[in-house]
């Protein structure tokens, strides 16, 4: 039961953590563009950053779930 809740939580969280960074960057970029009058260049750069950040969020979350040290994808905390 607890595993089901855990999996459900992670699945539904993955979608949200993909789009929230994109939206944050969209708003920051739009705000900076309006301030500096450089529409739309800063927004484009920030959206690309946001997509990468969203991917990073999803990656870190799934990595935390499958915490297996033998996994070749496990690079975090290798030094500790």
């Amino acid at each position: 039961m607890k595993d089901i809740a855990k999996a459900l939580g992670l699945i539904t969280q993955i979608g949200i953590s993909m789009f929230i960074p994109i939206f944050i960057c969209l708003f920051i970029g739009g705000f900076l563009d309006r301030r500096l009058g450089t529409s739309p260049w800063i927004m484009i750069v920030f959206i690309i950053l946001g997509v990468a950040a969203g991917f990073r969020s999803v990656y870190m979350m799934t990595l935390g779930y499958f915490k297996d040290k033998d996994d070749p994808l496990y690079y975090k905390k290798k030094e500790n």
Partner: protein
Amino acid sequence: MFKSCLLDKITIIPGLVCYDTDAVPKEGLDFNIGVYKEVPFMGHTCYITQTMVTTWFFMLVLLVFALCVRAKLKKYTQVPKGGQNVIEFIVELMDSFTRSNMGDKYAYFGKWFFGVFMFILMSNLSGLLGFRPPTADLATTAAITLTTFFLIHFMGITKGKAGYFKGYLEPIPILLPINIISEFATPISLSFRLFGNILGGMIIMSMIYSTAAKYVVPAIAHIYFDVFAGVLQTVIFCMLSQLFIKDKIPD
């Protein structure tokens, strides 16, 4: 033009947009946070909203309940009997839940998350009693996730020391802005999921009550949108908060 059109169509984002009396339709369904009183404060206007009043009421209920239990447990026994059984069962349930997510070493987080769990559960289930759930307001969920955000980075800095700051430069230093953005996205996504789930349930329930109550039994929808979604989102919120905090602590 886009903004006004959006506000005409979607006036159902309470808490997200500022309270704007012109944008609220005067008749029909109103999902906005009700403003009871406007208080002038240092040149600004503060709004005493329905969310705040309901939150104060729940805080009062929880505090009085906790004080009553504490007074009753003054003469506790080693082998529990009576009401002490129930209290110990609830507290141990949350403790073992925390222990399974964060390990034995950080089981002391169970006390904090017990309070968070009780408050969110009570808010989510309050739709059954006809309240507007406080968690259907982004301000409430944002406040709760702000504490989670603080705990994540406080534990990261105190336990991880230099490794915490080094973590932002991994795997290559050029990814620093991406790492920072995704750290800030974590509490926002946590608050939005709880807010959105409860708000969606609340909107569907009020739509059923206002239009389809003759043909549909609202109790069936209450079971799914209030009880099932409410309890599940509470459990998921606590679990994800614990996992995020655990993630920052080095082994």
